[in-house]
């Protein structure tokens, strides 16, 4: 299956995502350039972490206006899979492919550490290999990951089951001490109403190989890759 990793000027996790898809999951991967007008028939598009355009103005604000994002929006509207990690999540918010906004971390400092996430639903392509309520461990590394929205909007998000990952204590309990950026309701990752676009602040690509001591993130990519290929097979009448 074909995966595209978008490079904005300032993306710095592009190679990391590419590595997981290409060398760990052995997929067909290509880089998409921010000025590309199409996504070159990719079934999964990943917006990687980094500091696109230096995060000048606001995290993800300028990247959301680049030509490739028009193509990404069309892909998302057609039900194609889109994953945004860290700065990629911020781009998805700025592009209004996902609801909400990011503020600076509550402690006003960049934070790099492992966090614990509770998986809220596993009926999405990205989360099919997790159990509901499962607590997984992933690294974060950001200064602007404090998810926020109006109370009614957050209520709506919860009612629609759009919260996918939440920061929790290692035992799975909600705990402000373990919500390092101060996100509203511990929200670490959200999806759109259709469930084909996912954004999260933690980095699944940084915990996808045994040698790094943690593989909790690999299942997310595996799920996306498997799911992306099925509609395609169906469209081709199952032939390969």
């Amino acid at each position, binding site marked *: 299956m074909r995966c595209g990793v978008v490079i904005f000027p300032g993306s710095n996790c592009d190679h990391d995502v590419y590595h997981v898809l290409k060398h760990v999951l052995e997929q067909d991967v290509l880089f998409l350039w921010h000025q590309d007008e199409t996504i070159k028939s990719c079934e999964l598009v990943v917006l990687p972490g980094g500091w696109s355009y230096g995060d000048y103005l606001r995290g993800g604000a300028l990247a959301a206006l680049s030509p490739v994002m028009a193509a990404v929006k069309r892909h998302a509207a057609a039900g194609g899979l889109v994953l945004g990690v860290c700065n990629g999540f911020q781009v998805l918010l700025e592009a209004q492919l996902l609801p909400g906004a990011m503020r600076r971390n509550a402690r006003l400092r960049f934070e790099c550490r492992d966090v614990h996430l509770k998986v809220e639903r596993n009926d999405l392509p990205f989360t099919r290999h997790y159990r509901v309520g499962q607590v997984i461990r992933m690294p974060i590394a950001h200064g602007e990951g404090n998810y926020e929205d109006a109370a009614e909007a957050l209520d709506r998000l919860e009612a629609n089951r759009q919260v996918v990952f939440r920061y929790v204590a290692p035992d799975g309990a909600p705990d402000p001490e373990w919500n390092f950026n101060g996100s509203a309701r511990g929200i670490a990752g959200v999806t759109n109403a259709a469930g084909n676009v996912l954004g999260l602040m933690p980095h699944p690509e940084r915990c996808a190989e045994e*040698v790094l001591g943690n593989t909790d993130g690999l299942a997310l990519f595996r799920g996306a890759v498997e799911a992306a290929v099925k509609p395609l097979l169906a469209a081709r009448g199952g032939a390969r």
Partner: protein
Amino acid sequence: MSGAALAEPRVDLELARSHGLSEEEYERLRGVLGRDPTFTELGITSALWSEHCSYKSSRVHLREFPTSGPHVVQGPGENAGVVDVGNGWVAAFKMESHNHPSYIEPYQGAATGVGGILRDVFTMGARPIACMDSLRFGEIDAPRMRSLVDGVVRGIGDYGNCVGIPTVGGETGFHRCYNGNILVNAFALGIARRERIFRARATGPGNPILYVGSRTGRDGIHGATMASDSFDAESEKKRPTVQVGDPFTEKVLLEACLEAMRTGAIVAIQDMGAAGLTSSSFEMASRGGTGMRLDVDRVPLREPGLTPYEIMLSESQERMVVVAQRGRQEEIERVFRRWGLEVTTIGEVTASGRGEIRFHGQMAADIPIRPLTDDAPVYQRPYAPPADLAERQAEPEVPAPPVSLAETLERLLTTPELGSKEWIWRQYDHTVRTNTVQGPGGDAAVLLLKGTPTGLAMTSDVNPVYCYLDPRRGGMQAVAEAVRNLACVGAEPVGLTDCLNFGSPEIPEVMWQFRESILGMSEACRELGVPVISGNVSFYNDTEGRSIYPTPTIGMVGLVPNLGNLPDPHFNHAGDRVVLLGRDRGEFGGSAYLRLLFGIERGLPPAVDLEAERQLAALLRGLVFEGVVHAVHDLSEGGLAVALARAAFGRGLGARLRVPATPTALFSESQGRALVACSPGMVDRVLEAAEEAGVPALEIGEVGGEVLEVEASGDVLRTEVARLRQAWATALPRALGL
């Protein structure tokens, strides 16, 4: 020459002096030219002959370093040293100081320090994959110190995090000798395929010279000269000489340079660091044995009206000089433009051996290159030991612990010096690029070399108090400790870079410290088989007549042959047995115990037995390679007690131990020691291997529980690990008032 047509100040001895040139140097310049220099020529020469660029006081001593070895691909003299790390890969690395700018403007000073060292690495064709920072601050209560700590940490974080290079290690110390002159030493390492290394040698007359990256402004003019001067109350006014960093441009420049290098159309490339366009162009031509003609009116400017003098000396950041193959510059230009960067042809390589600087067709400078670079003045400065050396080294009385052993340990562990540095490294991205197998907080950082079974280990070390008491021994100790730290993760050293921070070379005592440190380091390097492949000298670290302690910071890199058996730096299995390796000699000179608890800073620092260090390092590497040990941690500041506490902190696992030592000896800092923990069935193997290696070894107890208990000659150190850990972990933020 037609330079007279440029409206520039007339140069005389007084003006030369205000540029930092001595009368002899000014006469030497006049001799080289056969006439009076132009204003631009004076500016260029003062920068190139500054201590920072010319190494004029240090050169004769730096020759002592062993610089060759089986792994060395490129030794000192290029932008970074290069070592072979196997499987077709090489690693380029270097450490550099950014002390004065960081004291004047901590955020930008530290940030641009990181930017500069990253460019030194990728200019070699290597992709940076790791940074470390060695920081020395003054006492936390000294004026401005809290804001300096905060500014430096934010500056390093914002820059490295944005470019996306993990900061995987380093060290942070606090001492009053840095109250008026902090140290920021930045290390970077990059990797490349062996055949893809680039060098900064401008060859091929007629080849065009391209200017790439940010536009040139007035920032940082005379930064190199500032770095070659002492501090005084006026230094605050030098803030405009500090450069401003733009990590986003750096990131784009990095990607564009690596991509442009793949075109094969680049002959040579160098970043514009200290002394900007002056040093980059003159050094490239000097290495290539060529000349250069530059039309500096073509240099893209941030604001109109810069003079050739200002253009040549600006230290605006994120700029590179590229020598292209004639006729192929378009291939290079295309890459840079794709990344949204400006690229301009500003001149060409010549065969003249001269630097010809033109401004709108008029000659601003026309000066032979070699006399300014390779043949710059070299000084054999007078050196002499300090008059009070005997007093400094007088054997100190060692008082017994002032309070209970547990409380004594807690007092040490809650000083900024020995407290956890987690507050700092949490603010650095240390996992980006997905190579970090062991990040900050251990003895050495370990990075995966993707596509191979091997790892790269790195550490940064020096103990300035040891160096103050005996610079030769201090220099040896820094190298030995770095080798030991690498051995703790099973790594064999392949090379080191240094950052030699000292006071004014014009003070004989400082020159003596410098020479002694180098002799000590060199001896240790030879004995332990570690070549020096790159480095940097930072003199004039003194404020109002007071010099910092000699601080020869070392960054050492090693190879881990197999990452599969990497031990932790902390206890990780209840029931494991703890074995203490090495011999204690009850040494307290310069120790944390005397210094931090009693304010005594006297005596000879611990002896360094290089043969014993070599044996211990080989033993540790062997034990790790065999997979016999679960945990390895070396003994350094604070001795056995501090090492045990830190081994317990990692997983909150305690231990019950018994050592045949006096209670005070728990804090002795004798060198060549380490702790290992292994399963009970492996104890015999560890003891046997130690005996074969000639390393004293003693089983001292068992890992387990939530309490650390150490019995020493009837006295007992007993402390709850979780509580002590909490006090240690929060010590630094508390001291900072956070």
